[in-house]
């Protein structure tokens, strides 16, 4: 009996201190990164093309972060609706070459012919704040994804954003990814994002 009691226990009390040291080390040397944002492609050096005025939606942001679209001063919260109306207009006559069958817009002859030709032109001043610029970019992205979601719902009974999510998901099988890619390409073809950022001082 007595010999069993004499076996000394290793003192584990300092284990917690060691673990705390490690924990604090990792807390200090690491950071929780925010790695999400709005993806954009910058234009390369291309030749300029003459585009009919009705196919361009000019958006200007001035140094005071005020917004002018198509010659009218508007609030940023109205931008999404205006952009959707412009992209989805489909003003080409029904017998025309570029007639847009799936558009549900007003079909105004003075606005864009079809979504494939509609270009959003974003111009900003050097004094424009980055926050306002991102808000506008975000609203434009929202307009496109609203329209793409609508088409994806019509054609595939699912949201465009969920198609993309499934495509980017690592667990999706390769065969399914090929199918998803086709669908994504098709929807993107219906409403291609054509954003021009011209230089302006």
């Amino acid at each position, binding site marked *: 009996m007595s010999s069993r009691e004499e076996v000394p226990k290793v003192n584990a009390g300092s284990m917690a201190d060691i673990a705390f040291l490690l924990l604090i080390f990792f807390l200090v040397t690491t950071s929780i*990164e*925010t790695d999400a944002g709005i993806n954009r492609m910058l234009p390369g050096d291309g030749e300029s093309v003459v585009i009919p005025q009705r196919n361009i939606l000019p958006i200007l942001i001035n140094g005071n972060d005020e917004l002018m679209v198509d010659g009218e001063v508007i609030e940023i919260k109205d931008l999404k609706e205006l952009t959707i109306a412009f992209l989805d207009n489909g003003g080409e006559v029904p017998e025309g070459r570029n007639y847009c069958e799936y558009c549900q817009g007003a079909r105004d002859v003075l606005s864009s012919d079809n979504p494939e030709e509609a270009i959003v032109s974003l111009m900003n001043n050097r004094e424009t704040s980055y*926050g306002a610029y991102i808000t506008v970019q975000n609203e434009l992205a929202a307009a496109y994804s609203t329209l793409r979601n609508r088409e994806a719902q019509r054609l595939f009974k699912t949201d465009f954003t969920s198609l993309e999510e499934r495509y980017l998901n690592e667990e999706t099988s390769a065969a399914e990814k090929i199918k998803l890619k086709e669908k994504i390409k098709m929807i993107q073809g219906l409403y291609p994002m054509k954003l021009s950022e011209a230089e302006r001082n």
Partner: protein
Amino acid sequence: MSKFAKKKDGELPAVSTASLPDIVFMLLFFFMTVTVMKDSSLKVENTLPNASEIKKLEKKDRVIYIYVGKPTPEFASKFGSEPKIQLNDKFAGPSEVGDYILMERAKKSQDLQNVLTTALKVDKNANMGLISDIKQELREVNALKVNYTTYDGDAFNNLQ
């Protein structure tokens, strides 16, 4: 009765701390998995704007970071309070961005060099002038894929 008396005399049993290391290790592993190592310390203020239409940057090794913002108070006396560009660990002018991108691109392996994204981590109070200069530089070195890094949130919070 003697039994009760004995119990009263005895001291309170100490709370066992044997599970404390386990708890701390659990915390440690949590932080090790959800965080990444800092590659450079920020010398600029970096309150990113909010946006809702965001895409995640999946692969860390395909991203080049550019930070823009006002120098933090400790650097403000030296570098002024105008927004500056931070590349790696030092401040730089817009003209140095092109060289930096080319240098970072050369460091990556061959198969990644064409799929690199430039993540612009810009303070929301910065001006677009500086961003335009950066974008011009990026176009010149053909680094066309950019990501405006933002927080997830309502974009209208950016306008106060």
